[in-house]
């Protein structure tokens, strides 16, 4: 609903003095984000990891499904950059494939769960009364249910190719805490005078939620989405570790770590490449999230 500057200039009657374009919020936040060292570092690492996950497999002669029957459990070499596993699979190809899957699962689950949290929280907090009671009960119920157990029970449904369903279920158990925070902030936002002003002006509630409440929660939501990425990746990993997540032949970092931990003691490459990449990924995502939080909220002390 923001009018572009050209339109504004057209609409305005009479010539006004030339004005410098005020810095847009996006640009300010981006500037502040990249001004922080951890923001730059996290972003760079994440970019490299994404590039590696997408383009990395192209450079390897091995696909993640290939098995080299001449090399079982071999240490890293020119032929197999990260070595091979017990079944002769190329660890490099598998790790990158697994990382791609983990990243994708993490990003999508975070996106879905944050959207859900925003909507549920904002509606519950804005309308209160019955809407709030129903939505809050639902939130409490999902908080009380042991997510790990439910996801594990449902794991047979996540058969080959069904990972989007897995993402949905993962998201379904990630949104509650954010939603509670969103609800609380919506309640206080509703008391804020600009929302009251809109109400007293006669702006319909839905419009207030989407044009005043949610945009003003965007910094919280963006930061939370970022941190949810790492939470989703870690949950996926632990589920997959026990065989409840991504199902073979598909691989994720979790399944790789599970397989690798059995041979970790005498064949460390089967474990540490996947584990290391996982740690680096989560670390980078957390750094980005923390830097974003600071960039959005300049008044907050920089927590580094």
């Amino acid at each position: 609903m923001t009018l572009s500057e050209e339109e504004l200039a057209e609409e305005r009657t009479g010539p006004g003095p030339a004005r410098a374009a005020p810095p847009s919020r996006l640009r300010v936040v981006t500037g502040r984000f990249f001004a922080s060292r951890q923001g730059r570092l996290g972003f760079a690492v994440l970019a490299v990891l994404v590039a590696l996950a997408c383009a990395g497999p192209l450079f390897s002669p091995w696909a993640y499904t290939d098995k080299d029957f001449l090399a079982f459990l071999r240490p890293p070499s020119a032929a197999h950059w990260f070595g091979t596993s017990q079944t002769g699979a190329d660890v490099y190809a598998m790790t990158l494939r697994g990382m791609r899957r983990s990243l994708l699962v993490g990003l999508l689950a975070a996106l879905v769960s944050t959207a859900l949290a925003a909507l549920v929280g904002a509606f519950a907090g804005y309308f209160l009364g019955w809407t709030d009671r129903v939505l809050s009960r639902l939130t409490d119920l999902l908080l009380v249910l042991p997510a790990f157990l439910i996801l594990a029970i449902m794991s047979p449904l996540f058969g080959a190719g069904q990972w989007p369903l897995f993402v949905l279920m993962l998201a379904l158990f990630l949104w509650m805490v954010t939603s509670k925070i969103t609800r609380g902030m919506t309640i206080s936002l509703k008391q804020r005078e600009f929302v009251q002003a809109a109400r007293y002006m006669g702006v319909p509630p839905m419009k207030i939620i989407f044009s005043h409440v949610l945009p003003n929660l965007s910094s919280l939501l963006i930061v939370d989405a970022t941190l949810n990425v790492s939470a989703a990746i870690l949950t996926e990993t632990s589920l997959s570790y026990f065989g409840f997540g991504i199902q073979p032949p598909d691989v994720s970092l979790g399944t790789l770590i599970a397989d690798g931990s059995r041979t970790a003691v005498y064949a460390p490459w089967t474990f540490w490449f996947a584990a290391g990449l996982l740690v680096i990924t989560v670390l980078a995502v957390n750094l980005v999230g923390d830097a974003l939080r600071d960039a959005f909220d300049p008044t907050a002390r920089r927590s580094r």
Partner: protein
Amino acid sequence: MAGFLARRLLGSVLLVAVAASLAYLLAAGALDPRANYADRTPKPPPAVVDARLTELNLNDRTPLLRRYLTWAGGVLHGDFGRSVTGTPVGEDLARRAGVTFRLVLLGLVCGSVLGVLCGAYAAVRQYGWFDRLSTAAAFVLLAVPVVVLANGAILAGTWANDQVFGHRVLLVGGEYTAGLDAGFWGSLLDRLRHLALPTITLSLGLIAVFSRYQRTMMLDVLGADFIRTAMAKGLSRRRALIRHGLRTALIPVVTYFAFTTGALLTGATFTEKIFGWHGLGERLISSIFTNDVNTVAAIACLAAVAVLCASFAADALHALLDPRVLDARVRGAG
């Protein structure tokens, strides 16, 4: 107040009932106990399997609703049914809860106390070397999944046994050495040797979380007016921070502690599994593999109860520590 407590208790009981029922229905619908008999040699006759499944209230040929009602009726009398092997679920879980409790307790205490100290000190010396170091360490630790941490701890323990102690001091696998007869102190030592590595694994993660949380809370308090008042009285910065700052900043952390405790009861899955402790978390995994519907439902119920108890405990602690809570006046329907 009594009315409010009763209402809240009723709400919690309802929530637990719904959660447990949901878990039971999901488990009964998705898990297939009949499959447990498919791989047996010799294959038992279907009639025997049927009879056995019916006896355990696991027969998928009985309508789901009837199985649920049977189960729910049992639960109301405190009977959580029997596991696939025919042992009572309640007893098994009670024993395992004890194991988990013994495993988690020390880690929880170490982790939260050290975490709070680290966080508070880091906040007081903001941007000092300790702050930077502990923040970096916390970030790394938060990114390491427990699996990796536990395996790392095992490797480090093995290395320490070989290189530092010269013999096996730190033990991996189980809660105690079976069949050891070394008197009370000997047994205690043996248990501690088993406890060391899992405790470190648990504490490290908790220290990371608690130090971050405490640091934020402490930083909030550091700028508070009452710290300035305390210093204007003539208190040293150190005393003002400890007496007035830390005490106030601890309140939210303590409530967080209660929640963590509740969650860890069924959440120490990895540590139990990897270190071979036969606790609740381990059962959670194995019950799914063995299609043990009753155990799954019982664990879900237990987890729900734990979370709700934790939230009660958090509120009670909050009220105990913060005099404002009990008399805060709330306008409106609240």
